[in-house]
């Protein structure tokens, strides 16, 4: 029982009161007895009894639920939502950018699409990655690891509870749906770990010890297969994954293993029958930029996206993992990271025929305002033919930047000499969305969903599979679907001082190699800065040559890249965090460091 101050005082009063009563009775002998013996004895006895009451020490934690309290349907679904809450990589361990699902601060700057940006001294861990000098002590990898395995642990919580027979009222369909989503998510986190580090352990709901010497692709496949077999095609709530998202992810897992036949089979099914969770048949949105506008979230192109919400003070689930990757000037103020590379900008040059220039694009640089300040006169090159997707992927001087007016150049870049003249763009909010689709605190937290798989990605991957084991013409059709959408003037930046020329591939590819080159280049253009490029290069087995070629020219522009060099058979994967290896060893598991680290 609780002992309050009042309680104590009442005892004291009682004690004194009884004393007086006894005195009134003039029972001298009894009184004497009471004062000298009885009263203290009673008091002591009372206190001992109270003090020893066991219930006094039975306390429960405030605001926390014991396992028994969440062993029910509602608790199960809340745990599942909590698992979805990990996908964005934020708020779990370290800073948002370290756990980012698009891995921009690691794989992003390790690819040829972006520099770290900002200035030399900011986040040196990121420079380490950019220079292919990643250390096992680099905290980015530690925090990313924790984020992914937290997601896996939460998935396992759901799976364990979902299989608990004590949950009342859980229908067979509900159970399949919930377990399907949980295993989808478990597969997703393992997949991300697998492509980051290759040699990673698989943690199931029963794992107690682990190692990393066995290939876990089959286990990842099993999770997505289960999800594909058990999930419904439509969900009441749009952000829950469905059967087709599982199919697309499973196909992607096949593609990462070059299992093109299995992938092609699935892609055919997805393209023929696939729908989003709300039941809309998969397709491309009419305008490219709509994929990067929060108002068009959850569209026919959404296969699997991280749902984000941010509006005013509601910002706990806003997209913040890219918050550093905003222009340094203007309303954004911070932080100037993830600046597009000159190489990426050049890649958007097209020939007069409106087709990409995969072999010659980097022979000359598209004109930029490098070395100029805002006030220095500058005119854009409006004759070189360009793919219009350039100006949704890259912020460059003179081109309208969403509805903020023309990008002013120098003043939006933290250190032009260090990080070049360009700004990232896709994830930056529009002026009209300020405070309504952004946080009103730090506005770099937005309501923009982040795609893990969008339908254009599905089309291009399926084209790759077709090239390998199917029809090159089917592949061409699918690539052209993507290109035609970009060709539509609705996909252009209105008022841009640029000469947009883009066309579909008009004739059959000359060879398998030509087809491969086309589809790979198309992925780069369509999906720039969306978290694919580095892993694609590794998957295609061309990371070392592509990136070392990239460095040859970039070195001359960015002095800090002079000592950078990509080591084949090492830098395709990142170092396993040393702390994680140490903790594993402490707990009787074994993790072997990746080769070369």
């Amino acid at each position, binding site marked *: 029982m609780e002992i309050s101050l009042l309680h104590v005082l009442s005892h004291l009063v009682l004690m004194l009161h009884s004393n007086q009563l006894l005195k009134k009775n003039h029972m001298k002998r009894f009184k004497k007895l009471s004062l000298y013996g009885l009263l203290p004895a009673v008091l002591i006895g009372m206190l001992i009894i109270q003090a020893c009451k066991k219930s006094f020490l039975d*306390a429960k*934690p405030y605001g926390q639920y014991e396992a028994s309290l969440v062993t029910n349907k509602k608790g199960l679904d809340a745990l599942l939502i909590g698992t979805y809450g990990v996908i964005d990589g934020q708020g779990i361990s370290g800073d948002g950018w370290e756990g980012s699902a698009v891995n921009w601060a690691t794989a992003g700057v390790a690819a040829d699409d972006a520099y770290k940006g900002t200035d030399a001294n900011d986040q040196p861990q990121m420079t*380490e990655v950019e220079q292919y000098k990643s250390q096992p002590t680099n905290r980015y990898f530690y925090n990313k690891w924790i984020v992914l395995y937290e997601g896996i642990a939460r998935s396992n919580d759901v799976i364990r509870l979902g299989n608990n027979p004590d949950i009342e009222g859980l229908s067979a369909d509900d159970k399949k749906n919930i377990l399907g989503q949980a295993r989808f998510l478990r597969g997703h986190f393992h997949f991300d770990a697998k492509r980051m580090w290759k040699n990673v352990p698989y943690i199931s709901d029963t794992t107690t010890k682990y190692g990393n010497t066995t290939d876990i692709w089959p286990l990842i496949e099993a999770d997505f297969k289960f999800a594909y077999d058990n999930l419904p095609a439509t969900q009441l709530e749009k*952000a829950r994954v469905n059967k087709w998202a599982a199919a697309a992810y499973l196909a992607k897992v096949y593609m990462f293993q070059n299992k093109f036949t299995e992938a092609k089979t699935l892609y055919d099914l997805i393209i023929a029958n696939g729908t989003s969770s709300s039941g809309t048949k998969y397709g491309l949105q009419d305008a490219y930029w709509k994929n990067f506008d929060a108002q068009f979230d959850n569209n026919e192109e959404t296969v699997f996206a991280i749902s984000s919400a941010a509006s*005013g003070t509601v910002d706990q689930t806003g997209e913040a993992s890219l918050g550093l990757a905003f222009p340094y000037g203007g309303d954004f103020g911070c932080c100037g990271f993830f600046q597009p590379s000159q190489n990426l900008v050049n890649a958007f040059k097209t020939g007069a025929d409106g087709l990409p220039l995969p072999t010659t694009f980097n022979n000359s640089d598209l004109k930029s305002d490098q070395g100029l300040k805002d006030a220095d006169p500058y005119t854009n090159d409006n004759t070189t033919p360009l793919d219009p997707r350039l100006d949704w992927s890259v912020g460059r001087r003179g081109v309208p930047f969403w509805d903020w007016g023309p990008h002013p150049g120098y003043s939006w870049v933290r250190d032009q000499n260090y990080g070049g003249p360009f700004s990232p763009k896709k994830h930056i909010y529009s002026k009209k969305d300020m405070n309504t689709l952004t946080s009103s*605190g730090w506005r770099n937290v937005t309501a923009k969903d982040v795609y893990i798989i969008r339908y254009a990605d599905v089309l291009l991957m399926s084209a790759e599979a077709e090239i390998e084991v199917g029809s090159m013409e089917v592949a061409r059709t699918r690539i052209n679907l993507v290109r035609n959408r970009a060709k539509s003037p609705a996909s252009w930046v209105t008022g841009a001082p640029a000469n947009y020329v883009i066309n579909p591939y008009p004739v059959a590819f000359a060879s398998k190699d030509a087809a491969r080159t086309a589809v790979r280049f198309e992925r780069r253009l369509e999906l720039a800065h969306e978290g694919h490029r580095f892993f694609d290069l590794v998957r295609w087995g061309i990371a070392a040559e592509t990136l070392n070629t990239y460095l040859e020219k970039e070195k001359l522009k960015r002095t800090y890249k002079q000592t950078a060099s990509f080591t084949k058979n090492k830098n395709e994967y990142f170092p396993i965090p040393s702390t994680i290896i140490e903790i594993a060893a402490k707990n009787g598991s074994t993790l072997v460091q990746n080769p070369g680290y």
Partner: protein
Amino acid sequence: MKKILRRVRSQLPLILLMLLTQSILAQKSINGRVIDKGSKSAIPNASVALKGTSTGTQTNANGTFTIKTNKADDVLTITSVGYDAIDVSLGSKDSLLIEMAPSNSTLNEILVTGYTAQRKKDITGSVSVVNTKELVANPGSNVESLLQGRASGVTVGTSGVPGAGASVRIRGFTTFNANEPLYIVDGARISAISDLNPNDIESMQVLKDASAAAVYGAAAANGVIIVTTKKGKGQSKVTYDAYYGVQSLTKKYDLLNTEEYGKYLLGLQKGIPGQTGTSFNLGQYNGGKTSTSSPVIPEYILAGTASGVQAGDPLADPNLYKLDLNDVNGNGTYLIVPANKTGTDWMDAITQNAPMMNHSLTVSGGTGTGNYLFGINYFNQEGIIKYTDYKRYSVRANTNFTVKNFLKIGENLQVNYIDRHGFTNQDEGNAISMAYRMQPIVPVFDLKGNYAGTRGSNLGNASNPFANLQRGSDNVDRKVGIIGSVYAEIAFLKYFTLKTVLGMDYGTSHYYNFGVPAYENAEGRGGTGNFNEGESFGYLTTWYNTLGFQKIFADKHDVKFLLGTEMVQGSGRDMDASTNNYFSFDRNFWQINSGLNTTPSGSSYEFRYRKYSPVIAKLDYVYNDKYLLSASFRRDGSSNGFGPNNKYGNFYSGSLGWRISEEYFMKDISWLNDLKLRAGYGYLGNDNIIDFGFLTTFEFDRGNASYPIDGGNTGFSAGLRHNGVGNPNVKWEEAYTTNIGLDASILDSRINIVLDVYRRLTKDLLYERQLDPTIFGNVDRQPTNIGEMTNRGVDLSVSYRADISGDFRFDAGLTFSLYRNEVGVIADPFFEGNRSRIDPFNRSVTGQPISSFYGYIIDGFFQNQAEVDAIEQSNEGIGKWRYKDLNGDKKITVDDRTFMGNPHPNFTAGLNLSATYKNFDFAAFLYWKNGGEIVNYVRYWTDFNTFQGNRDKRVLYDSWTPDNRNAKLPVLDASDGASGQVPVSYFVENGGYLRMKNLAIGYTIPTATMSRFGIERLRIYLQAQNLFTITDYTGLDPEITTQQVGRDDYRARRSDANSLGVDFGNFPTPRIITFGLNVTF
């Protein structure tokens, strides 16, 4: 009785409670008077007791007393501080004149030692007595920091933050968790004593070993500090104590000026490996152009959006200047900031010579039937960092009534109101850190007197620390606290005493703060104003009841025992609201309701202190004043710490004492007054671990377990996440202490020595262990019993009192403390501390002291390419640091890290000297910390290519170059993002120091002069604190506290293991020159 009442009323205006009505005893009355043997003057407040009983009284101001007895063979024992105790047989006499002889000896002093009091000479445990007179002679805001060097075995870490607490460690470190001692003030448990008015303290005892502290059980494993506040005595008097002091900063970092910073930037560019260029972009210098190789300081660092603007540039036309707080990023704002060509001394900009003052007015008095003390106190300390301060207004009311011979009632109470502007110490975002993170080229104010900052190119991302401080000056952080206790004590059946004490530590605080758009900053200047307001309250109550028995059997067997019960509980709530989007930033609109945001956010939560309900037993036995035995037992339960299986623990201790000097063979040694050998052994528990760690729990978490599952943009569904995996088997940490001590009093008791040697073995150490994240994810750390730790040490205190002549007196006191800590067998190979920007420095492993420093040892520089090629190391190159290859595999890996420093001192010592000559008095106090290393983490910011902050001068002048091959720092290289990014031996410095903590001179104006004005005593003094410090440490102050220590951590368990000995930019202890006066009338 009425007469007594009337007298009590007339003399004790503060009486609130008179509960008992009439006397019930009819016995013989004995009257007496106690006087000084020499001067024959009355001795007030002498304690008069029937020997061997709990019945007693006190003499009044005239030295007289009345005591009732019904036996003629009773013996009275009279004791008074500063006199030898005396026993007087009553016989048939009705009135007595008792003469007492003054004594040098303090052996009969009564010390409060845990629920009870003991004569000093009867103590068999290890107890340090703090000389409170010396303690309060040293003005300071709180008691904890004043303790340093004053008691042997006590180590204190402090900072100069006004009003902040200090970390107090008794006999080193015994646990991975908080090592804070338990504070007992007038019988009540207090969460921290930093708000206590030091002037109110009568006595302070530190219980150091298990035999002394065991009766406090679980919370006492780290020792107990017992504070008793003053009581009134004698004739009514008024005392007024006041001082005024000025605090000043004694040391600054030695940073680059604007010109030097340009040279540094040039050096960085030139140093890039493979650099072939001859002209460089140097940021602001040279107008941001790659045009010349020598840095040219620009005229303006910002003009609109342009940086590095030269004189005469039309962009810097003052007419263009505008500032609109509602549009700091848009066209409404055009700032022009001139470069500070000589360089801003940011430390100067944020520091000041800060006043501190104290006024205490106390009225006190007492008679045999009661006493009172009423005091008011005003303390105001401004920080040497501008706009930080701590103001305390407090009232103390202590009253004690001897209502009857058998009944005493009283209360001790302090109510305080605290108004402060705090400081987040040991944090990279505070003003001290920003002062070295700001470049010298940035002025404090811009062209129009508004703030200047890092807005512009290449100025880094720090924020103007002066602006931050000044903007915070209207923020509010206030607290009302009540610390106190009430008690009643009933004596009955001659030998028994029943005591009930109810103690309370209550606090409520209120705060708000407003953030205006910080237009001058590079980062985070946007926003529309944000406001945050909150309140919290918390309380901790202690209620204990004890039954005491004391009787001397056959004149030789002095037996005392105590039985008791106790209840400890407390809880609190916090409420907080915040919003943003303000139309006006004026102070008039600093309320939630003025925010235009449609959805202000609010939160509230509740917390609960641990509850305890122990049963206590204690036995003291003395045979013939020669052989002493003491034993105690406590059964304790912990509500939040442990599950049903391990909820309770039984703790005990025992100690023996032998007063060898009482033996016949020692009696003849004339120079030896007293010699006592003590030995004690005890077993204590500790439940200081995360609450409810025995349970597996889940939590709804808006922050990181929520998801917009409906795909919407403006709302989300809350989800559950696992909090922690419970360990139902977690149990009490066990501490076993062995203590052997020697007390000696020699040369007419002029020299007193207390020596203790101890060993403390802690088993089943409680630790919050990181569960394997690969399996469990990012769960809370799990409380686990992980191993052992041993602490061995020696405490010594020696005091000397010389009475050379009537005019000249001299006292000296020395305290010496030494401990050696060693981590025993632990469950994991190691435990590491908190991560800063880089990996943790602290690591604990078997065989090493807790929280030792761990990292790479620097083995010189790579002097040439051959040396570079000889070893594989990341970040290698000519002029870079080469780390020691410990395993000789020609490859530097994580396996080449080792222990590179020990944060624990070799020993600490305090020397106190005081002397009086006629009316003059002098005091000096020296504190010496020998050894003990410090990780100077500030170097991460000032010595490496880390962000674009300012750099220490050694970076420019003592980095490796071909001409300076034995440099301190690696070669300048703009592409070097790796040097100093891991724990290396460069950060470790010797942290030993010798400090003149106090030097004072006082003068007491002769009584004859003053008595005409009704003034009994008037003393004035001048004092200097921290006058000088001798140290090798290059940081601001070698006296550092553990990270984030302070009273803000109302509930935090301060884990030392995490950042022990790491200096994150500690607020330095200031030098203080004080003038003060003490008046009694």
